[in-house]
């Protein structure tokens, strides 16, 4: 039976055109090296110099070391190089629904992996870099490593903070993105995790167990206090959603939106997508940039909600926003996004559908909604036009279609 599958796979794989990637690989490697140099030169140079005195002097003053403690001979000791992918340290119970598959305990990682029980393991994705800096104002340094609970329906790569003492001992500070109740907070994948100025900042979009109703993008900051992580800045609760579409204010909420910038290679997509919190209709955030269906990195995007309206789809009221979207690396475009209710929870404005994205030379001049239809007044290269869109709720292919 599988011989036919093997033959089919070999035949299909042979359709891939041969290509020499040598130049592209070297160009990409040089680009990453330049970026890393630009981002990490100062910290790396200080740490590589091995001078803790210099390191402490340059370190932010937040939660600095006890001034009553005199410098000891050890302050000039080179900080130990520790390979967390091959080390033993305590990993607390994995937050979210993965506690049973990945219970807490001391784990010995080998090449970034350790079994927790049959069928499950903790796993450090080798493509995600370990962050290094100061979180407690004490000698030694802290590391933040991304760990996944790899099991059926595995987790994302969530950040765990540990402390590496001057003697090389590793102690665990805790999972970064959990709240005071121990509930897992979902990270915004487009936003970087930043370890700087004596603290770590993450962008979260809600509690894992409460999404999508409590979708609410926030920056939260943590630092180590008495050997454990504690939140030092940012909100501590999330706004609750509503099932009443009429109560939704798209100018002052967290929007999830995606542009549709035309098809890419092989029918893939080109887009910017991300979460942005608006205040008085304006906001800015890192979005994921998708080119030919591939995530090529994050780009700062500024949005302005130009108009909001309600249209009825499937017998329910659906808020719609007309949003100007300006990526830092490209021209402004306008998107019309319909925020449908979540089919499972019933919460309003939790299921965004991009109705249309303006192309180069196009301007959306007006949007009206009536009888399940959105009607757009547009100009294309100076020529006025009217386009209308209606939601096709066919479960096999639900989407907004032009009529």
């Amino acid at each position: 039976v599988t011989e036919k599958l093997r033959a089919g796979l070999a035949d299909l794989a042979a359709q891939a055109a041969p290509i020499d990637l040598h130049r592209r690989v070297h160009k990409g490697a040089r680009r990453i090296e330049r970026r890393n140099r630009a981002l990490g030169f100062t910290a790396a140079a200080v740490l590589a110099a091995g001078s803790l005195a210099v390191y402490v002097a340059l370190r932010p003053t937040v939660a600095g070391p006890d001034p009553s403690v005199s410098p000891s001979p050890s302050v000039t000791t080179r900080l130990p190089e520790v390979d967390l992918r091959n080390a033993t340290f305590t990993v607390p119970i994995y937050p979210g629904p993965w506690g049973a598959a990945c219970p807490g305990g001391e784990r010995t990682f080998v090449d970034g992996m350790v079994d927790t029980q049959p069928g499950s393991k903790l796993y450090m994705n080798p493509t995600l870099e370990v962050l290094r800096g100061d979180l407690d104002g004490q000698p030694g340094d802290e590391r933040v490593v991304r760990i996944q609970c790899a099991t059926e329906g595995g987790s994302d790569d969530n950040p765990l903070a540990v402390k590496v003492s001057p003697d090389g001992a590793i102690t665990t500070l805790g999972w970064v993105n959990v709240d005071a109740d121990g509930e897992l907070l979902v990270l915004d994948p487009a936003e970087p995790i930043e370890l700087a100025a004596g603290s770590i900042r993450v962008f979260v979009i809600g509690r894992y167990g409460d999404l999508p109703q409590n979708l609410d993008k926030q920056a939260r900051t943590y630092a180590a206090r008495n050997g454990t992580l504690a939140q030092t800045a940012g909100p501590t609760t999330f706004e609750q959603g509503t099932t009443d579409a009429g109560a939704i204010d798209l100018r002052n909420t967290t929007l999830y939106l995606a542009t549709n910038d035309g098809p890419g290679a092989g029918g893939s997509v080109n887009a910017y997508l991300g979460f942005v919190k608006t205040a008085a209709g304006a906001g800015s955030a890192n979005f994921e940039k998708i080119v030919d269906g591939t995530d090529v990195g994050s780009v700062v995007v500024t949005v302005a909600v130009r108009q909001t309206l309600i249209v009825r789809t499937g017998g329910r009221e659906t808020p719609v926003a007309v949003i100007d979207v300006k990526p830092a690396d490209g021209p402004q475009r306008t998107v019309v996004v319909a925020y449908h209710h979540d089919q499972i929870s019933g919460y309003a404005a939790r299921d965004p559908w991009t109705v249309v994205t303006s192309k180069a030379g196009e301007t959306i001049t007006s949007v009206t909604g009536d009888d399940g239809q959105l009607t757009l007044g547009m100009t294309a290269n100076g020529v006025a036009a009217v386009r209308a869109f209606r939601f096709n709720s066919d479960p096999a292919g639900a989407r907004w279609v032009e009529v």
Partner: protein
Amino acid sequence: MDRPAEDFDAYVRARTPALVRTAYLLTGDQHRAEDLVQDALIKTYRAWDRLQSSSPDAYTRKVMYHLNISWWRRGRSAEISTDRPPDGARGPDEAGQSVTRLALRAALHQLTPRQRAVIVLRYFDDVTEFEAAETLGISVGTVKSTTSRALLKLRAIAPHLLGMEGARR
């Protein structure tokens, strides 16, 4: 002793064709396959000195499989919320391709990334269950169960691909 850069260049030239073929099965698209292999090779380049006592090919493949799963997770939202129906399994130049080839590509597209990865590892790369588990960072038991479910799904979607015409689950 560090591996010289010439070794890496030779490795890239020798292994790219095979890596692109595997990536093509994982992504279903030539351009995405090239990008996937390129990104995996960049990471291999950066780790080249550390790989002197191990297999760079195993490392590159491991990175490639993980990058692909990550891309899918991030990219699917864009597919869902776009106003064009996702049609990654279709392209303008496919009219003349065999029905079987099209059906297999479409069927692979219906699998989850992990299921697709396991199928490609086991039945194209011809690695053992243990090696597949190492590459994907999962247990052998998970490889077995994922393979079983993937084959069941393939049989349900396209029974003729596995010589199972008329079979019923």
